[in-house]
């Protein structure tokens, strides 16, 4: 027994920092997700000519908390004929996979729970894909037709799009030459160019496939409310339902982070090797200052005194944050001796800012798409996956590989690689158009063949 205790202590000594980070993530993620939902609702409202949540807190800022409380105190219903064990397990699996995957991510050079795993990106992708079991088993355990159909759709969809996403990742990884997340970002820094520019087609494929993997519109068929009520979540309520919800958004963060890491330069700021753009380092500080100024300006216009104070408090907080953010840049002028000491923190904070910024942009695109386009039908979704994305991703790997060899042959590096990768991307696009044309031809023929069968009676 003593030995076990000792082992535990030894373990804790070694790994207290990642453990701490893990606990922080588990504790903070629900809040972050809550606010992503709020942002989503606000963005949606803005696109739909309305205001969105406005009642709880100023501009609905406390809405997520109210929602969370509501969900927690809701009655927990388990259908009579449900498979209780699996019904209990499924949401946990779903959210567990999502949270575990986040452990492998690097949010800035300094913040990574499981640093330097040499299979980094594969770990994230593989673990997050396990979340599907939560959906499939949850749908099955509910013992309802809608849920089961949602579950089946979900598994078929994931298996199909996982392939395309994986292949898209491969063409990105070809440039990186490593699976390690830090190494991938470093490769983008040394080459001075994001892999998204070198392999735009791969970025596109990953973008589409990642929407499908996270079951977001227009690929939200497993939970399509107009057809399957809520798909696999139909029978879940209260806290279990919110776990699913949490998992969905955690997955969204994961795929956005993977895309950011591999294709969008991770925590690097845009053009990190171009020195005359160094002023971009001020961006985080400037942004917070802008928010602060806005708050100060708006404060007098608030009708209630509490709101005015709140606005001013936010402004003050933002100013402090801005000072902290700008400190590394300002300190060398004030006290040069301190500059070296804060350098790592500086890199960490700024890396984190840029990483989160890119992830936010990516997630925003998800939302944008969701409010703009209608939903695919299931067979169309499958056709898009198997007939278009997978062939395209295979072709893309091929042409990217050829481009890399050509690049090596001509000793191209960094931006010069565009000379070979752009033609490669164009070839892939032409191939894509050809695939589309062939596919629509086949679709016509299918319809012509199927029509008499359907409509004759």
């Amino acid at each position, binding site marked *: 027994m003593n030995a076990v205790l000792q082992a535990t202590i030894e373990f804790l000594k070694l790994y207290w920092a990642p453990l701490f980070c893990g606990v922080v993530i588990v504790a903070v993620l629900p809040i972050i997700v809550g606010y992503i939902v709020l942002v989503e609702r606000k963005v949606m409202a803005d696109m739909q000519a309305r205001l969105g949540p406005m009642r709880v807190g100023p501009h609905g800022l406390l809405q997520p908390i109210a929602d969370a409380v509501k969900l927690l105190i809701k009655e927990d219903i388990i259908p009579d004929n449900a498979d209780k064990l699996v019904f209990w397990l499924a949401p946990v699996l779903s959210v567990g996979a999502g949270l575990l995957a986040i452990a492998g991510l690097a949010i800035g050079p300094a913040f990574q729970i499981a640093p330097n795993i040499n299979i980094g990106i594969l*770990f994230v992708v593989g673990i997050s894909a396990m979340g599907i079991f939560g959906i499939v088993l949850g749908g099955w355990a509910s013992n309802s037709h809608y849920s089961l159909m949602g579950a089946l759709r979900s598994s078929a969809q994931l298996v199909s799009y*996982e392939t395309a996403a994986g292949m898209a990742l491969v063409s990105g990884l070809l440039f990186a030459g490593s699976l390690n997340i830090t190494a991938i970002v470093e490769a983008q820094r040394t080459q001075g160019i994001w892999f998204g520019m070198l392999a735009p087609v791969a970025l596109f494929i990953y973008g589409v496939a990642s929407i499908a993997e996270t079951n977001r519109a227009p690929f939200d068929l497993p939970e399509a409310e107009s057809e399957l009520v809520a798909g696999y979540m139909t029978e879940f309520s209260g806290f279990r339902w919110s776990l699913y919800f949490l998992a969905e958004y955690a997955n969204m963060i994961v795929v956005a982070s993977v895309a950011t890491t591999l294709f969008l330069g991770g925590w690097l700021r845009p053009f990190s090797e171009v020195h005359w753009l160094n002023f971009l380092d001020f961006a985080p500080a400037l942004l917070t200052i802008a928010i602060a100024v806005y708050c100060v300006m708006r404060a007098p216009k608030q009708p209630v005194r509490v709101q005015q104070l709140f606005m001013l408090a936010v402004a003050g907080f933002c100013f402090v944050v801005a000072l902290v953010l700008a400190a590394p840049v300002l300190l060398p002028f004030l006290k040069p001796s301190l500059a070296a000491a804060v350098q790592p923190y500086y890199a960490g904070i700024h890396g984190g800012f840029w990483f989160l910024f890119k992830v936010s942009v990516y997630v925003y695109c998800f939302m944008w798409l969701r409010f703009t386009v209608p939903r695919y039908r299931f067979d169309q979704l499958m056709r898009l996956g198997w007939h278009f994305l997978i062939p395209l991703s295979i072709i893309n790997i091929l042409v990217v590989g050829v481009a890399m060899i050509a690049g090596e042959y001509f000793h191209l590096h960094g931006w010069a690689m565009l000379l070979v990768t752009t033609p490669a991307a164009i070839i892939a696009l032409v191939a894509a158009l050809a695939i589309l044309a062939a596919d629509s031809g086949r679709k016509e023929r299918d319809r012509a063949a199927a029509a008499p069968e359907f409509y004759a009676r």
Partner: protein
Amino acid sequence: MLDNVLFYFFAGLAVASAVLTVTRRNAVHSAIFLITTLLATAGIFLQLRAEFLFIVQIILYVGGIMVLFVFVIMLVNLDVAVRQIQFARQKWVALVVALALAAQVGLMFWSSGKMPGQGLPVQTAVAADKLLPNSEELAASLFKSYLLPFEIASVLLLVAMIGAVVMAKKRT
């Protein structure tokens, strides 16, 4: 010490859920325990610092094959399986096979020096922080030393795939 605890944890989990995989009547429950087994095995791989194998096990077996398994299980009629007699007549065959396997393992231990691990060709492990990244190692061996077998295997898989497609097409 920590290693030992982890190993026994994973190994015990793997064995226990493997047993449950066989004994559960409900096919979905069986599948869940099979997943647990696979994950526990993956855990052991990770302990052996075979990260690549670990993640391949998870992506391929858990994330790919088991999803299809569960998919198919849900499509077929489960109630029938639940009500059928649990162990069919093959149990004697199974017993014989199991005994034969056990005998084989025993023979291996016996011929190698009677004690577990004693006579087996175990190399002394390199210190964990000095290990080469094994995905690179694996890639090198697959695409350099064993290129031909690898290609043959891939052709085989391709044949299987085309065969599956052809069979599926014939039905319609």
